[in-house]
C-alpha cells in the first residue's frame, strides 16, 4: 500500500515537471495519455472489478465531450467544463445502464455497443452539432481567474483533475462497495442469495464509470479544442478496452499504463513506418500470448505461455 502511494506520488511529480524539459509535442502526448488513461481506468472499474464488459463506454466519453463543447462556447468555466458534462454523463449512464443491466455477457456487450452507435448516428447527422465535422473552436475554461489557454496552467489543471479522478476510482475500488462489486463479478448468484440488491450495485458501478468517462471526454475537448462524432464509435470503446487489457485488467493503474503503451505505439511507430499496423497487430498477439497479466502482470513476474 505504501509502495503504491509512493509510486503514485513520484509519478505525479514527474508528470508535473515534464513540460520543463520536454518539447510541446511530447507534452501533448503525455496529456493525451492522461486523458485516455482516466477513460480506460473508468472502464477497468466496470470490466475488471464489476465484470461488466462494455463496448459502449465511448458513449459517455462523447456525451461529456459534446456537452463541454456546447457549454464552454458560452461561458468557459469549471461548471460548464467539468461539472455539467459529468452530470449529463451521469444521467445518460443511468438511463443506458437501466436498460443494459437487464442482460449480461455478450448481450450486454452488444446492447452497450448499440447505444453508443446510436449516439454516433445522431451526432453524425445533426447539423446543429456540427454533423460529421463536429464542434470546433472550443475555448478552454477559466479557473480561479486563470485562463487555461496558457499551456503551463492547463497542464497543472489536467494533472489535478485526472489525479483526483484516479484517487476517487481507487477509493471506490477499496471501499465496501468495491468489494461487493468484486463479489458480484465472482459469483452473482451467491451475492444475490446472501441478500445484496445486485442490480442496484451494477447500475451504480455503471454510473460511476460513466461519470469519470464523461469527465475524460470533457477534458479531451478542452485539450484539443474540438470534438467529433468519432468519439462515439464502437472502435473508440474498443481502443479503451485494448488499453485496459494491455495494462492488466482489474488493476486500475494498469489501465493508465496500457493507455501510455497504446498511444505511444500508435503515434510513434506510425511516424517511422507505413507498416505500423503489422507492428501493432504483432505486438498485441505476442503480448497476449506471453504477457497474460498485461503490463502490471509482467511487472509482477507473470510471463510466459502457461503463466
Amino acid at each position, binding site marked *: 500500500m505504501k509502495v503504491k502511494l509512493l509510486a503514485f506520488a513520484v509519478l505525479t511529480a514527474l508528470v508535473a515537471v515534464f513540460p520543463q524539459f520536454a518539447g510541446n509535442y511530447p507534452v501533448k502526448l503525455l496529456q493525451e495519455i492522461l486523458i485516455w488513461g482516466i477513460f480506460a481506468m473508468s472502464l477497468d472499474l466496470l470490466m475488471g472489478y464489476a465484470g461488466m464488459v462494455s463496448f459502449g463506454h465511448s458513449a459517455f466519453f462523447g456525451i461529456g465531450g459534446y456537452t463541454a463543447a456546447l457549454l464552454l462556447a458560452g461561458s468557459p468555466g469549471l461548471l460548464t467544463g467539468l461539472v455539467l458534462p459529468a452530470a449529463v454523463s451521469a444521467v445518460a449512464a443511468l438511463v443506458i445502464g437501466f436498460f443494459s443491466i437487464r442482460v449480461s455477457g455478450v448481450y450486454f456487450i452488444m*446492447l452497450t455497443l448499440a447505444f453508443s452507435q446510436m449516439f454516433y*448516428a445522431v451526432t453524425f447527422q445533426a447539423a446543429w452539432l456540427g454533423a460529421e465535422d463536429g464542434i470546433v473552436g472550443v475555448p478552454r475554461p477559466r479557473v480561479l481567474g486563470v485562463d487555461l489557454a496558457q499551456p503551463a496552467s492547463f497542464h497543472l489543471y489536467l494533472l489535478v483533475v485526472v489525479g483526483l479522478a484516479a484517487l476517487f476510482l481507487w477509493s471506490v475500488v477499496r471501499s465496501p462497495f468495491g468489494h461487493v462489486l468484486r463479489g458480484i463479478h465472482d459469483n452473482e448468484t451467491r451475492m444475490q442469495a446472501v441478500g445484496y440488491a445486485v442490480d442496484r450495485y451494477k447500475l451504480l458501478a455503471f454510473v460511476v464509470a460513466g461519470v469519470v468517462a464523461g469527465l475524460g471526454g470533457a477534458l479531451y475537448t478542452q485539450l484539443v479544442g474540438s470534438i467529433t462524432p468519432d468519439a462515439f464509435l464502437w472502435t473508440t470503446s474498443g481502443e479503451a478496452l*485494448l488499453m485496459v*487489457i*494491455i495494462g492488466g*485488467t482489474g488493476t486500475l493503474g494498469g489501465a493508465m499504463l496500457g493507455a501510455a503503451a497504446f498511444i505511444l505505439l500508435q503515434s510513434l511507430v506510425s511516424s517511422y513506418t507505413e507498416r505500423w499496423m503489422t507492428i501493432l*497487430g504483432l505486438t498485441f498477439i505476442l503480448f*497476449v500470448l506471453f504477457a*497474460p497479466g498485461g503490463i502490471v502482470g509482467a511487472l509482477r513476474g507473470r510471463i510466459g505461455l502457461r503463466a
Partner: protein
Amino acid sequence: MFVPDFFGQALNGLSYGVLLFLLSVGLTLIFGMLDVVNLAHGSFYMLGAYAGLATIAALGNFWIALVVAPLVVGAIGAVMERLALRPLYRRSPLDQVLLTFGFIYLFEDLVKWIWGGRIRSIPPPDLFSGSVTILGATIPSYRLFVIVFGFAMAVALWLLIERTRLGSIIRAGVFDAEMTAGMGINMPVVFTAVFAFGAALGGLSGVIAGPIQSASPPMGAGILVPALIVVVVGGLGSLKGSLAGSLIIGQAETFGKVWLPGASMMMIYLVMAAIVLLRPQGLFGRPLK
C-alpha cells in the same frame, strides 16, 4: 404502382437478408458453438474476397474461385487457431479479444502490402450478369443466385450439424467437452476443424458478396458488427436463429431505408436493442438462467 413497389423492396430485403446470413453463419459457428470471441471474422471475409480476386486473376473463373477461396481461408484459420488461439482457451475471453484484434490489424496490413490499397471488384459470373423482371420488379440475376445459394447453404449446414456423425460430435463437444474427449474423440482437432470451417464460411461470403460490393483492405470492419448483431438477435449458436435473424434484419433495414431514410444509420441497432431487451436470449437461443 404499389404492388411492384412493395414486392420489389421485399425482394431487395430478401437478398440483403440472405447475404447477411452468409456473412454471419461462420461467426455463429465459431462464437456460438466454440464460445470463442473471434473479432477477426471480418478479416476472414476480406481474405476470402482477395483469395477470390487472386484466383479469378489467375484462372478467370468465378466458380473455381468460389471453391478455392474458402479452402485458402479455412487453412489460414486452422493455422491461426492452432498457433495462437489454442493456448488461450483456458484463459479469459478478454485475452481472445486482444488476440483477435491484433489479427485484424495484421491481416489488413498484410493484404495491403501484397495487393495495395486500391479498391477492387469481383465481376459477377457471366451466367448472372444481367437483370430480370419479376412481377414488375427488377432485380439483378446475381442477387437471385445469392438468394438460392444462401438457402441451399442453410439446408446443407443444417443437415451437416443435425444429421451427420461429425455434426453430433460437434454438438456433443459443445455441450460437454470433457465427456466427449473421454469417449475417445480428439477434441483439439475437432476445435481446429470447426474454427477452420467457420473461417472458410467467412471467406466464402467474401467471394459471394464480391460482385455486389467492392473489396479493399479495411472492408472487414464493416461486416463485423452486423454479423455480431445477427448472431445475438438469432440466439448464440443457433443456425435457425441466424437465418431468421438475418431475414428479419434484412427486411427491417430495407423498408427502413424506404420509409425512414434518416434512421438508416441506426436501424440495425434499433432492431437489435429491441430484440435483446424484449427477448434477451435472442429468437432461438437457449433461455438465460
